[in-house]
């Protein structure tokens, strides 16, 4: 069936099978492969994108169910040529190693900070409970979120 969605500010109308997962739509139909797949049970968060301003797991959402929605993926988080403060912070704080969980981690983190700019370390750690990283031990991810919180609050 036909669906129309805006992804990273661009409108797309595509014919998809009802069973197609949103993450497959984003990756295989639109070719935006920054959103990764890390599990099949909605646990790991690698596929996190923003759906109408909220972070969600695109492996647990059917593309047909988001007809008309506004979606942001890692590729559209910042204007072309720029980095979002969260992307910058992950880089500065060495918040990634293999990079596979990173897009989902960044997408989840930006919404955490937007919803609560003054999180304690413990709140950040709890807030990231839906994103699994096997490389970093989370320490530098937490640091990155803390550092990005400051920059995002500063408005620059």
């Amino acid at each position, binding site marked *: 069936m036909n669906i129309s969605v805006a992804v990273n500010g661009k409108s797309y109308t595509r014919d998809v*099978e009802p*069973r197609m997962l949103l993450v497959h739509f984003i990756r295989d139909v639109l070719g935006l492969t920054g959103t990764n797949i890390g599990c099949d049970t909605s646990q790991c968060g690698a596929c996190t994108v923003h759906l109408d301003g*909220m*972070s969600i797991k695109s492996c*647990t959402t*059917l593309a047909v169910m988001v007809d008309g929605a506004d979606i942001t993926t890692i590729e559209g988080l910042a204007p072309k040529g720029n980095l979002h403060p969260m992307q910058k912070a992950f880089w500065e704080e060495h918040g990634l190693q293999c990079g596979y969980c990173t897009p989902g981690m960044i997408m989840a983190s930006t919404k*955490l900070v937007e919803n609560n700019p003054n999180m304690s370390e413990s709140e950040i750690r709890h807030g990231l409970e839906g994103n699994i990283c096997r490389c970093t031990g989370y320490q530098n991810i937490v640091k990155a979120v803390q550092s990005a919180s400051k920059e995002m609050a500063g408005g620059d």
Partner: protein
Amino acid sequence: MYPPKFDYHKANTVQEAISLVKESDGKFIAGGHSLIPAMNLRLADPGTLVDISRLNDMKGIGGGNGVISIGALTTHAMVAASEVLPDALTEAAGMIGDPQVRNRGTVGGNVAHADPASDLPTVLMALRASFHMTSESGERSASSDEFFIDLFETALGENDVLTSISLAEEGANTGSSYQKLFNPASRYAMVGAAAQVTIENGTITAAGVAVGGLTPKATRASSVEAALVGQPANDATIASAAAAVANDLDDEVMGDIHASADYRRMMAPVFVRRALETAVSRAS
């Protein structure tokens, strides 16, 4: 990761949803957070899905006259952020899955699925919530004791839509809490305990207590409730009442690699006590 084929219909009204499911022998889908992972693993093959997620009348928290109504399509995130709902419920909603899951998963989908390790059934039972359903023949309601029937089984008929859940506003002298022993992998409840108490002049005048995670369905802790009502709101009452939960657990307590049945049984009074302690402190 590749769900089986199904037909898909988007419903615009509750009645349309009901007839679509009836005609197709299909299933409703709201947030999809119980169903889609099962379909991803090809453990569920619904044939037809009727999408009720656009039935906006069923979204949101409202009410009046001391009763709060939660639309079945209200997300866990909305419940967790609510300032009008009892603490036990907002607490429990905040412990479901993770922020992304809470943004999509719905209260109705969760309770209709009736997963034994789910948090909401336990809390809604303790809070004596009512479940409002619409079927082809009309509307009806069920108490929490009537609604949860067994493992993955509720009072909902195959073609029934759960439209809303209602419960009493928490008064000034009433407090509630939900305490949970997390499954370290799935983050579901291995033991969940919900308690709500009303205290007047130092005496517990009403109590709702339920446990989940241990049994095929959320279980009302009637022995605990009985041991509370009419008693002074103190540590001794709480301790002996919590211990009474053992009487409410039949031999259907379940176990897995993370927590054996024996361990869960042992943890039930501990988490009931913790829930009661917090509920009492909030009521006072």
